[in-house]
């Protein structure tokens, strides 16, 4: 054993390879458990709605496509019994869209139109509009045949040979139903151009099973669809406003107070610092009610102010952390500055702050995280939907509908979490150091 190896072995490096393998195995399993829910969130976000309901679940977002080359067979009732068809064919729900202007068939939109939950029924009942009728009624829903179990044949368009198009199967029903999502022949999805919830079209059609093609496809369009639907952009701006305002305030004012507690000399310094530490133990629910009263007196309820103004008076934990950091700075520098005739404010700005960038960055970062994640504050103080932060907006988005469009909610949740994960990956050192510091020195 060389000297180097000997030295290493004091820090208990696993000497046997199987031990190392075992550790890796353990850590890999832990990684899988900790990360998998997030992977599942992203996978769900990129699936079509119908696929999210599959049981057993399917891991990868996928689509089944088929080329419809024939006349359609349509049903107009609401039940999903397969059409009594002599041929053992599969029945499909086909979503159609305008291929070219004169021959729009049906309008609908189920999974993207959460606020029109009855869209499916709506569509089922009035699926059929003769192309000419629709043309006449200016592209609106048009006259639909009355509900009933009538079976109806129609041709897709005036020139059938030009109306060939590909479809994606959304779901296979037990009885042999297949739901198909339509796309145009070159495999571009028409739903993209049609826009979600408005111009998406449904009809029932027939797809021979041998025509089905399964392939993995990530439904990236869920992301913009969900962001539009939950008004993500506006909530993002609200969140950023509150988070950044508070971040600047708390970092600066906490640093000021920390400086006073670290280097100042005044009566009752120790007592005030002790009081500062003690307030960390006061739970928010214990102050919530009178605090709400204070904000109501100030007429701040329904504004952003309760969410950021208090940060401009500092925060106990930040003061504590910064004070610990300041105490580690070389005192000679401060004394030298003082001898050179600097005022305390000048020392603070020109000596202490520049030397404390890592600690300040950490405090700023942690406040940003806190403000980004905060749910209870916005829930208490924001009354108007237009002012919601992302936390509150996402919660409202999830709970507003009777049956949640999970793929869209997951897409929004993923986009909501992503900036924090990116921040973490970019500033992994600051994070780890910060977490260790808040947890140990504290």
């Amino acid at each position, binding site marked *: 054993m060389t000297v180097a190896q000997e030295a290493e072995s004091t820090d208990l490096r696993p000497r046997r390879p199987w031990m190392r393998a075992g550790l890796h195995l353990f850590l890999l399993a832990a990684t899988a458990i900790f990360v998998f829910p997030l992977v599942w969130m992203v996978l769900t976000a990129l699936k079509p709605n119908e696929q999210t309901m599959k049981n057993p679940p399917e891991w990868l977002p996928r689509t089944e496509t088929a080329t419809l080359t024939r006349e359609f067979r349509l049903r107009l009732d609401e039940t999903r019994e397969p059409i009594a068809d002599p041929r053992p064919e599969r029945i499909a729900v086909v979503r159609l869209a305008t291929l070219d202007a004169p021959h729009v068939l049906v309008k609908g939109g189920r999974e993207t139109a959460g606020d029109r939950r009855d869209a499916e029924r709506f569509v089922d009942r009035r699926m059929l509009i003769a192309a000419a009728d629709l043309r006449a009624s200016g592209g609106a829903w048009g006259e639909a045949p009355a509900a009933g179990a009538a079976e109806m044949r129609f041709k897709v368009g005036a020139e059938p040979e030009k109306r060939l198009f590909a479809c994606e199967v959304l779901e296979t029903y037990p009885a042999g139903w297949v739901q198909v999502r339509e796309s145009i022949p070159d495999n571009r999805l028409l739903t993209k151009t049609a826009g979600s919830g408005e111009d998406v079209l449904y009809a029932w059609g027939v797809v021979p099973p041998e025509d089905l093609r399964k392939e993995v496809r990530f439904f990236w369009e869920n992301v913009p669809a969900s962001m539009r639907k939950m008004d993500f952009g506006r909530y993002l701006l609200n969140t950023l406003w509150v988070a950044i305002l508070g971040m600047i305030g708390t970092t600066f004012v906490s640093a000021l107070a920390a400086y006073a507690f670290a280097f100042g*000399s005044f009566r009752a310094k120790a007592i005030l610092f002790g009081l500062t530490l003690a307030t960390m133990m006061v739970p928010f629910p214990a102050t919530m009610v009178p605090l709400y009263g204070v904000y109501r007196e100030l007429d701040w309820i329904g504004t952003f102010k309760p969410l950021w103004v208090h940060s401009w008076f500092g925060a106990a934990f930040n003061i504590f952390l910064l004070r610990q950091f300041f105490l580690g700075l070389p005192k000679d520098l401060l004394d030298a500055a003082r001898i050179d005739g600097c005022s305390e404010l000048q020392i603070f700005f020109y000596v202490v702050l520049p030397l404390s960038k890592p600690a300040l960055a950490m405090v700023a970062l942690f406040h940003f995280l806190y403000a980004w994640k905060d749910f209870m504050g916005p829930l208490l103080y924001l009354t108007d939907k237009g002012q919601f932060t992302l936390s509150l907006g996402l919660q409202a988005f999830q709970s507003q509908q009777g049956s949640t469009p999970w793929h869209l909610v997951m897409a929004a949740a993923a986009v909501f979490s992503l900036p924090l994960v990116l921040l973490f990956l970019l500033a992994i050192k600051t994070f780890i150091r910060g977490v260790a510091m808040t947890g140990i020195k504290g």
Partner: protein
Amino acid sequence: MSTPSAPPYRRPPPRAWAFVVPWLLGLLVFTLYPFAASFAYSFTEYSVLRPPEPVGLANYAELSGDPIFLRALYNTLLFAALSIPVGVLIAVGLAKALHAPIRGTTFYRAAIYVPHLVPTVASAILWMWMLNPDNGLLTSVMRPFLDPLGWKAPSFMQDDRLVGLDFKNRQVIFGALPSLVLLSVWGCGQMAIVYLAKLQDVPQDLYEAARLDGAGSWDVFRHVELPQLSPVILFNVVMAIIGTFQVFAEPYIMTGGQGGPNYATYLLPMFIYDHAFDYHRMGYACAASWILFGLIALLTLIAFRIGQRRVYYAGA
């Protein structure tokens, strides 16, 4: 400071005191006043519409007989008693594993920390989805194992029981409160990172001395690393107590603000929130919040007491 020969010590003029003024103002307005006021309100009947009316100890007396309050109290204590020890154990285990000098620890560290970054609303919604009893991921994963035995998968957030086996209905029980614990433990990677940082600070000569004494790796962990870790564990347990007693968003979101089923996930902060802002019984809510605070103070004190006996402070 002053030696006999030196001129008499004169107190220097106060320095930098003004820097602390904004903080003190904030402390007064945003913490101390509300804190004191909530104590005062707790002896009143106070709805938003009318000024508070003093009622003496009536609120506290009512709380002591309010079954919903007692349920919330019980839930909160149980939630803390489950989630804190489980979280600490897993975090220490992970920290110990990450402390071994193997490749890829940066990756592992990042991976176990990431769940902590996910905003509460997003993680609550994600776990609602994962724990969905119809086609949630966990149910679907368990089904292939349970179906052949004729057993049913747990119904998670829709079951007011805890953990166990229901032989009558042939169902595995994993109820709503344990589900909340699961969600909370999922975020314990943060604590693991803290413990790991402390383990990395353990002086090398301690290891060396232990090795010379012929200590095995368990002895080293038990008698070197754990004592070094103990003050950090204590501190984190105290922080966890303070945090756990304030858990509001997770049950609120996962149960649609109900704390159900059958009050199984109704925690004290939700009780306070409901009474203050839904039932407009501010005084009653304040009394409950003071019991919450008293509980935190008491448990923190107990933790420190235990700490005094059990925790090793280097140089102390």
